[in-house]
Each structure stands twice: as structure tokens, then as C-alpha cells.
């Protein structure tokens, strides 16, 4: 079926397009304007902005952490919406089903779950398989497990580490590698409560710096396209910008993605010893093109923090809002779930909010800074339209600033920043840049051959309203959203990488599991028979 969207303002940074034009797609793919054919379906999208489907590079949408948060907070997701017809479980608050529905309605068509412990990959995939419409993928978390730390300590060859990463990506069906507080999660099990870049993981004689650098090198050597996705040390602490700057200095000129950097943009100025250091941080990012960052914007809302940085989460327990939480010392890994509420009247929260926006506005290149709230840690993903509106309007930011405590404004540069994001920059940050970051060839753009994942927004003065309810969303060419409502449910794919590696590592790993746990390693592998028939995987290519 040939479909034409005509008269819309196409914003497609990958192909340098920013103007009114027609877009054609057929059989789930975008095609060049066909000569001499009449479209089967046409949509008049005059007065609309047409973009590729948005890609969320870091959002905690599935797995043990999210599910623990659901169980921890029955009060947070009481459902009260009326029930649309023909939509099983569409009324369940914060369910897998709702996740797909709400993302799709905003024009998102691909979302990556960024923190899955290898031994819990099956659980995460079961949830991902249950999320409708969108495509998805997950990052597997490495960097605190004995097998890897021992290999580094014992000076094993990089090749064997590359094989180990390949085997783990294969077993967990992941799209990339995340590292959380390298060495710190293991150190916490040994009763260490603070762990910085040059602290040593007990028993391994390796600093956090050494662990992440070796892992970063090995990830490059696997030829997977997504660089090491790093959650640095000292998240959330005053003065932690020093850790972030030192981490960038340690990044060896190799690709490195730093996650939710707003949580590391803190200085120690002012009477509370807490200030925004976003300007200094942004300058460093601008000067180091090997580094990409996502922001992890805070918005004033009740949220829950979900993190594999169990040390940080343990330290956050006394400040929980409400005061409760789950601290899980997992196999070679960790997880902490602690609820929180960001309040506009809270000095610290207001500084966090401002620091995030400063980072967005002070990092020059939208290919280098990614749009996230670290859902749900900084804010629920449902606040994205509001955040986008803040980026696009200095006036809107000024309105927010008027509500902040006075002393906050003295400790941030935000009121002085008049930059306003254009649609082109928004599309770069949420489509073109994620495409590059994950090495997607088939999405994040509207050129011929790309999947027909398309978001169409009606131009409005109220940018939040515009992005909240996409006028049309097409997923693989199927119309799935009309006027902000899902009209058709489809099942997306799960995206994964399969780098080449020497299978000899499998025997070593089998033996390791047998000796350590007395269990077959296969017990932890994600196998086809464990997943519903609707779980379809697609492979993201590696560098050649």
C-alpha cells in the first residue's frame, strides 16, 4: 500500500531536510517519490511538522527494577482513566501496556532500557515483549562482576574480554554495554560506602578509572556501535562535577557515553554547599567530541529512583520521599529502588532542575547531548512534552524560574540563557543523534529505505501540547496513533547486537558457573522457548 503525507514541514536532519514537502512510504519503508503512481492513501498534513519516530536512548521501562518500583509504590499508579474499547489492560497504570501506549502517543517509536543485570535479562525481555507498538532494546550491565574484574586484575588479554562481552551480549540479547559505578557496586558488598574514580575495588587492586577504561577499550574492540554507556561514580553528590570532568579526561579519546549527567553537574558554592556546575561541565563536553551525554532532566513531580548504583541508592534511603526502599545485592550486580519527590520549593531540587536545562542549552551540538529524564529517576517520560517546551521557549523557562527559591537563581546561569531550540535541533537530539549513538541504519531519519516510523505533530504555539499528542504516528508504515490516541496496536521488535567472538569463551564460562554456583550457565541465558512467539528480534549491525 502506497501512502503519501503531503504538505507537511519535514524535519529530517540526517538528510538535511527542513522544509515543506511530501513523504511516501510503502510496505513499512520510506520510499523515494514514485513516478507515475497514485497513492492508495493520502494524508493532508499541512500545518504539521513531520519527523522520524523519536528514539529514547535511556529510559527504565522494563525489568526487575521497574517491576520492584511498581510493587513498592501501589499508591503511585492508581488507575482512574475510563476504559477505551478493544484495549486489553490499557487502563493499568504504569504497566508494560501503558508504557507502549504513552510513548507511541508522543511519537516515540524506539526506546532503550538502559540497565539490565545479565542474570535478570529474561525478566526484562518478558516485559519488553509485552510492551506494544514501540521497538525496544536493552543494555546489559557489566563492570562489577568477579569474572571480568578478575580478568582485568590477572592481566588477561583484551581478546578474552572481548569474547566475554560477546558471549554476554549473546546470552542477554542486548544492544550494548552499560557500566554502573565501576567497581563500586562490588565494593558496597564489602561495606564501602563511598567510591570515587581513583578508589580501589577491594580484592581486585583496580581503581574505578582502570575498570571503566579497560571496559571502554574492550567495548570498542567488540565492534559494536554503541560505546560504553557509563554511569559515573558519586552520582548526586555536591561537588561531583570534579568526578565528571576527571572521567572525561580519562576517556582516552575513545567513544564514551555518559548517562544522566545532570546528576553530576553539581558544585559546592553557596550557603548550602550545593550549586549548579553545568557551565563548567558543558564547556568540557563541548571540547571533547568523543564524549556524548544524556541529561536526565529533573522535573517537579513524584518519582521513583531506580538504579544499579546500589551504593548510591543505599545512601539515598534516609532521604526517600516517602521513606522506604528496596536494596538488592544481586549476583555480581546491584539494584536500589527509592521513591522521591522533586519539589519546586526545595533548594536542592530547584538547582537540579536548572542544572539540567543549563546543560541542554550550553552544550553546543545537539548530536552530543541527548534528551532524557532518566525515566523515572529525574521525571516520568510523560513529562517530555513539557521539557521540550522549556527547551524551545526562554519565556517558558522564565515563568518556571519565577517560582524557584530566590537563592537558587544566584547559583545557576539559567536566567541568562536565551537559546531556544528549533525543531531541527529537537529532531537532531531525539532522532538523528540516537541513530548515530546506537548505530541504527534503518531509523532516526526519513530517507528512502528507512523504516516508516513517522511522527506528525500539528504546529501549535503550545509546544507541550504539540508534542504530547502526535497528530499521526506511523509504526512500520501502520497508522497507530491519530490525534494523540492509539488507534491500532502492533507489536514492535527488540533490537540487539551480535558481535563476532571466539566461542571458546563459552567453555570457560560454563566451567566458571559450574564451579562458583554449581549451576549450568544456560539457566541464565535468554532462549527463544522462554519468550512468546510475538517476541521478534532484529539485529543492529556492528562496525565492519
Amino acid at each position, binding site marked *: 500500500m502506497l501512502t503519501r503525507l503531503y504538505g507537511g514541514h519535514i524535519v529530517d536532519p540526517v538528510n538535511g531536510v527542513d522544509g515543506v514537502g511530501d513523504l511516501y512510504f510503502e510496505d513499512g519503508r520510506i520510499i523515494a517519490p514514485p513516478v507515475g503512481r497514485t497513492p492508495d492513501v493520502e494524508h493532508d498534513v499541512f500545518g504539521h511538522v513531520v519527523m522520524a519516530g523519536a528514539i529514547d536512548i535511556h529510559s527504565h521501562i522494563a525489568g526487575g527494577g521497574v517491576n520492584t518500583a511498581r*510493587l513498592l509504590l501501589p499508591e503511585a499508579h492508581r488507575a482512574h482513566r475510563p476504559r477505551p474499547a478493544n484495549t486489553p489492560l490499557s487502563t493499568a497504570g504504569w504497566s508494560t501496556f501503558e508504557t507502549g501506549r504513552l510513548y507511541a502517543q508522543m511519537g516515540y517509536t524506539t526506546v532503550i532500557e538502559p540497565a539490565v543485570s545479565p542474570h535478570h535479562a529474561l525478566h526484562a525481555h518478558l516485559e519488553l515483549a509485552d510492551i506494544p507498538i514501540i521497538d525496544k532494546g536493552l543494555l546489559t550491565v557489566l563492570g562489577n562482576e568477579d569474572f571480568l574484574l578478575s580478568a582485568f586484575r590477572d592481566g588477561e588479554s583484551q581478546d578474552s574480554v572481548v569474547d566475554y562481552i560477546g558471549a554476554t551480549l549473546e546470552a542477554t540479547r542486548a544492544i550494548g554495554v552499560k557500566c554502573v559505578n565501576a567497581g563500586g557496586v562490588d565494593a558496597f558488598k564489602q561495606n564501602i560506602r563511598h567510591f570515587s574514580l581513583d578508589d580501589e575495588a577491594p580484592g581486585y587492586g583496580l581503581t574505578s578509572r582502570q575498570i571503566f577504561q579497560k571496559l571502554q577499550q574492550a567495548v570498542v574492540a567488540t565492534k559494536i556501535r554503541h560505546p560504553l554507556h557509563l554511569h559515573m561514580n558519586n552520582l548526586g553528590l555536591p561537588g561531583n562535577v570534579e568526578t565528571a570532568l576527571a572521567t572525561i579526561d580519562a576517556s582516552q579519546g575513545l567513544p564514551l557515553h555518559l548517562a544522566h549527567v545532570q546528576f553530576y553537574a553539581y558544585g559546592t558554592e553557596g550557603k548550602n554547599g550545593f550549586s549548579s556546575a553545568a557551565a563548567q561541565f558543558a564547556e568540557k563536553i563541548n571540547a571533547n567530541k568523543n564524549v556524548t551525554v544524556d541529561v536526565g532532566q529533573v522535573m517537579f513531580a513524584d518519582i521513583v529512583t531506580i538504579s544499579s548504583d546500589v551504593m548510591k541508592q543505599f545512601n539515598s534511603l534516609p532521604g526517600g520521599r516517602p521513606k522506604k526502599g528496596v536494596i538488592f545485592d544481586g*549476583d555480581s550486580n546491584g539494584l536500589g529502588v527509592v521513591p522521591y519527590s522533586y519539589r519546586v520549593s526545595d533548594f536542592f531540587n530547584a538547582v537540579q532542575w536548572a542544572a539540567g536545562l543549563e546543560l541542554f542549552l550550553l552544550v553546543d551540538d545537539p548530536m552530543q547531548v541527548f534528551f532524557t529524564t532518566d525515566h523515572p529517576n529525574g521525571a516520568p517520560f510523560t513529562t517530555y512534552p513539557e521539557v521540550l517546551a522549556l527547551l524551545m521557549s526562554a519565556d517558558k523557562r522564565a515563568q518556571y524560574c519565577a517560582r524557584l527559591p530566590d537563592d537558587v537563581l544566584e547559583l545557576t546561569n539559567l536566567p541568562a540563557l536565551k537559546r531556544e531550540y528549533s525543531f531541527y535541533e529537537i529532531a537532531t537530539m531525539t532522532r538523528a543523534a540516537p541513530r548515530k549513538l546506537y548505530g541504527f541504519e534503518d531509523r532516526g531519519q526519513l530517507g528512502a529505505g528507512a523504516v516508516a516510523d513517522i511522527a506528525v505533530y500539528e504546529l501549535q504555539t503550545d509546544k507541550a501540547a504539540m508534542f504530547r499528542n502526535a497528530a499521526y504516528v506511523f509504526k512500520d508504515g501502520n497508522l497507530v496513533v491519530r490525534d494523540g490516541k492509539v488507534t491500532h496496536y502492533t507489536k514492535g521488535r527488540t533490537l540487539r547486537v551480535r558481535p563476532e567472538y571466539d566461542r571458546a569463551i563459552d567453555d570457560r564460562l560454563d566451567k566458571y558457573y559450574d564451579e562458583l554456583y554449581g549451576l549450568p550457565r544456560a539457566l541464565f541465558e535468554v532462549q527463544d522457548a522462554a519468550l512468546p512467539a510475538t517476541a521478534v528480534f532484529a539485529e543492529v549491525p556492528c562496525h565492519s
Partner: protein
Amino acid sequence: MVETSVEAMSNATLDGKSISSEDAYEQAAKILQAANFPLVAGLGADVAGAQAAILLAERLRGAFDHLASRDSLTDLEVVRSAGIFVTTPNEARVRADLALLVGSGLTGYWPAIFERLALDKETVHGGKTKRRVIWVGPKRGEAKIEGVEVETIPATEAELPGVLAALRARVGGRPTALSAAATKKLDAAAEALKSARFGVAVWAAAGLDSLMVEMLQGMITELNGTTRFTGVPIGGRSGATGVLQTSAWMTGFPPRTGFGRGYPEHDAWRFEARRLVESGEADAALWISAYDGEPPPWEDADIPVVTLGPPGAATKRGLFIAVGKPGENYDAVEFAQETSSMVLRRAKAPAELPTVAEAIAAISARFSEDLPC
């Protein structure tokens, strides 16, 4: 040949008499569809079975509960009111230098417990040491683990809450009303807990109540002020933890959730299966117990009941449809106690029986079309 026909005969029965599968699914669909507020209970099933069952409850605007919800909710009540420290049995196996076993009957709730925790072996991570094992409130003669010297703190079932409270008090240096001798013994245990490097408390919610689990977790929180301490919960029977997880991602809530108002509502009292049946609020029930055919908890059900269970568990009254045992007769995903994660159990004895999900799909396929979906 005889065996095959016997098996075929036992696949579905109505009031104890064999009927065809086709008739059974037809009947089941009629019963459930005719109900104003049907109950999907038992839920002794694998993840796929639970998914099908919960979707069915939603479609029928009924409620669902698991046969071991009481145990899941005992721990969950503590999680959602205070929070919890937990680890996996395997992390305990490789790292825990002290195990505090709480309550009696642990090997009943988890037969492979001591094989998995390997308390007789030295720790592997965080330093190689022998383990210290303290058992609070074992039954007489129960506190025996091969190759392990078990210290015991005696407590009858009735005394256990008080002993746990006193132990927690002594960990925090607070006074108790116990005798000097009893206090001395508890002080020694408290000292051991505090000097553990990475201690774990092991308990089965089936043998405790929420206040006891909260007491235990309160103590663990205090211990984490100076050292590392965490917990290994033993989950409920018949796939309870896997169903709990599935229910959470599908509805946001644990079992004991109803869809009567058109959206999920969770209420541990209101949607308890037994109460719904005995009060007459539910007017039909689907009872699923695929692991072992455990019967429903209610008495005198005057409502039509459709049972899904293993072939041997045919009911004398009502409609019975045989299903395979998850992970035994068919490949199934369940939450594994030994790994504290979802795992695929390959069928050891494949059988020509429907899975729970297949049986539910067969019933749902026979609903008449006027049922809103």
C-alpha cells in the same frame, strides 16, 4: 493403547464424568461468560499461564488471586510500608559469612536450601572464610546441616516474634525484659550479626507474618549502619513469585486485584479468592493449580467452578480440564528460587496436554462475540 484412552478420558470431566475437550472448553466459556463477577484463582501456573489468566480476568471484568498470595503479600506488605534488603541465594552462597536462619520448616518450603546456600563450604567472594550459622526457632532436632556447626536460639512458634524483637533490641543496644541468661545468649548472637562481613537472614514468609518480617528487616536496616547485611526470602508455592512479578508488570499490582470498575484495583482483603467465593460476591470461578492440583481454599462453593489441574486431580464436582505441569510436561518460564530470577524450565516429561495458556486460549476462543474485549 489402554493407557492412551485412560489419559484421553481424564483430560476433561464434568461432575466426575468424562467429556470431550471440545465440550469442556465450550462449557467453561459459557460458565465464565455468564458470570457477573467471575474469579480467576489458584493461578498455580507459569508466566505464560499467568499472563493468559490475568488477561482473561480483565476481559471478563473479574478478579484474580494466587493460592499463595498470603505468603507473597506477607513480604510485600513490608516492602511497601517500610522497604526491604534482599539478595539472591547465589550471592549468599558465594559471599555470606553468616547466615541467620529464621523460623522452622525452611527445608519444607525449599527442599534444596542447604545445597544451594552451601554453608558447609568457605565463602568465595570478599575473602575466604568459614560461615557462622545461627538458627532462630528451629523445631526440635531440625537444626542440623551436614558439615555445619549450627548455633541455635530456641523459640517456639509462639515465642518467635518476641525473640526476634529481643534480638533486634540487643543489636541496637536497647534493653529487653528477658532474663539475664537469655539476654546473654542473645547478646552473643547480636555480636555475631554485627561482626558479620556480609550476613544474610533467610526466612520463608509462609512461616511468619508481616510484623515478624518487618522486625527482621528493621534489624537488617540497623545492621547496615555499620556492616553489610541482607536477606534471602523463600517465596511461596505454585509459582507465586513469578505470578506476582507478571501481575506487577501487567497491572501495576500484585494478585488480589479486580477489574470490576473497568480498571485494575488492588485490595488484599476485597479480592481474596476465598472471601469472594464464600461471601457470594463472585458468581463463577476458574481455579488453576497446574503444579500439583491443590484444591481451592473455600468451602461450600455454590457457584460453578472450572478447574485446570494435572490429570490426577480431577474434581468430583464441576468442570475439570487437565493441563500439563509447567516445566515438567511443557517448557515453561517461572521464577526460580535457586537463582531468584526468571528461568526457562525445559520439559522433562513432555506430554500431550495443553499448557495453562493454551487451555485459557481455548476457553476464550469460545466466548460469544458480544463479550466486550
